């Protein structure tokens, strides 16, 4: 899973060249074989696939992204960076996309003092690497295995060891399957590591259901563990509601309401039904349910304000403001009334680009999103 920091920097880097278009490409497999049995089976699959296409359903989001708009767009959690932070972003080219970012951070206890990140992306490959001052590397490699199927490797290498997650996304016309393996190893005579799948299926144009299964064995001496998560998502033009029940007994509910193009409100609740997760974290039983309510407002000058209050008596705001063409400023604060503590954060983002990029950006301002794809790399994500 990407860390909060990765999500932030990746988002900012992608925003720069106006990417982020969904990459689910639909393709159908032509049934053709000379062996009669095989051709019969392929024909059956083809018939089922045609019937499914006839419903006119679209590819749903991945199961783990059911509440993505709430968690990563409206809630302040992903944007809270206490302390001081400066990002210097340089885009050298947009097709293939080549971007380097250097970040300096102090006083937040999470980010390293210095991070160097680079992105290289073409229409078929996306490479992102970040090396920080503790010499820890986080790498994200994405490639198209076919026009529709996307393979992904996420790795993190530091002095404490290496973790690698291998993932394949297989989108169909009305569903998506994601298969994942983390740190797989056969060296100890048995498979150790974690393997999981998640599958989501559109039922109607608005409703999608999802299931996720996980199987893991950390060490050959211990028994394997398995669990299933279930979830659903209903989305219309005005609101999106999603819910999921995890194998640990945590019920997550989220709701997003669009008040207008520029104003969105969201509520997210997490209820620990068994109390096990709170007990494992050493928390009081009272904290088994947390609810956050947040509102996101976009202003005409492209400033974005997020306000949030939660059931643990925390109030937070994050203001993103474009100060100049090449500079963006983020001010954030969180006040914890129960503990009477306050966090403050200031982030500055400087963006610069080569002359050729400036020319391309001027050119595509008048073009539609489809036309601009000929000038911009559209990497798999």
């Amino acid at each position, binding site marked *: 899973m990407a860390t909060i920091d990765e999500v932030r920097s990746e988002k900012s880097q992608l925003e720069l060249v106006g990417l982020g278009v969904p990459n689910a490409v639909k393709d159908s497999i032509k049934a053709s074989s000379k062996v009669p049995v095989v051709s019969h089976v392929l024909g059956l699959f083809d018939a089922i696939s045609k019937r499914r296409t006839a419903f006119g359903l679209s590819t749903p989001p991945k199961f783990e992204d059911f509440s993505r708009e709430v968690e990563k767009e409206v809630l302040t959690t992903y944007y809270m960076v206490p302390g001081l932070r400066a990002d210097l972003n340089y885009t050298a080219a947009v097709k293939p996309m080549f971007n380097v970012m250097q970040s300096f951070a102090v006083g937040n206890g999470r980010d390293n003092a210095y991070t160097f990140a680079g992105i290289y992306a073409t229409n078929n490959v996306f490479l992102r690497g970040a090396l920080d001052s503790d010499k820890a590397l986080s790498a994200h490699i994405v490639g198209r295995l076919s026009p529709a199927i996307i393979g992904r490797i996420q790795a993190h290498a530091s002095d404490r060891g290496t973790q690698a997650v291998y993932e394949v996304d297989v989108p169909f016309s009305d569903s998506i399957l994601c298969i994942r393996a983390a740190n797989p190893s056969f060296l100890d005579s048995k498979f150790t590591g974690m393997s999981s799948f998640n599958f989501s299926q559109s039922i109607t144009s608005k409703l999608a259901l999802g299931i996720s299964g996980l199987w893991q064995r950390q060490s050959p001496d211990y028994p394997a563990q398995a669990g299933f998560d279930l979830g659903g998502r209903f989305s219309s033009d005005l609101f999106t509601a999603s819910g999921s029940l995890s194998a640990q007994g945590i019920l997550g509910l989220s709701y997003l309401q669009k008040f207008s193009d520029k104003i969105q409100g969201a509520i997210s609740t997490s209820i620990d039904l068994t109390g096990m997760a709170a007990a494992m974290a050493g928390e009081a039983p009272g904290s088994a349910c947390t609810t956050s309510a947040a509102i996101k407002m976009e202003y005409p000058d492209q400033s974005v304000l997020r306000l949030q209050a939660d059931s643990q008596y925390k109030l937070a705001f994050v203001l993103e403001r474009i100060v100049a063409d090449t500079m963006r400023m983020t001010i954030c604060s969180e006040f914890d009334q129960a503990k009477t503590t306050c966090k403050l954060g200031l982030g500055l983002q400087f963006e610069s680009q*080569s002359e050729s990029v400036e020319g391309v950006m001027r050119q595509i301002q008048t073009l539609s999103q489809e036309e601009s794809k000929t000038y911009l790399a559209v990497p798999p994500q």
Partner: protein
Amino acid sequence: MAFRLSEETKERIVKFHELSQVAFRYGFIPLIIYLGWSQTTPRPSLISLLSPLPMNRA
């Protein structure tokens, strides 16, 4: 699916894995920079890519 590897093979795999980890950890960022630098026209100067200051970025 239990199968046994000989100790020697296991050691070799572990050694190879360790070496490839080190190569990946220190080689990935240079690889990205090389790919980007070699595929971009006009080629950007390395100083402008590696320096945090916005100099020579015309």
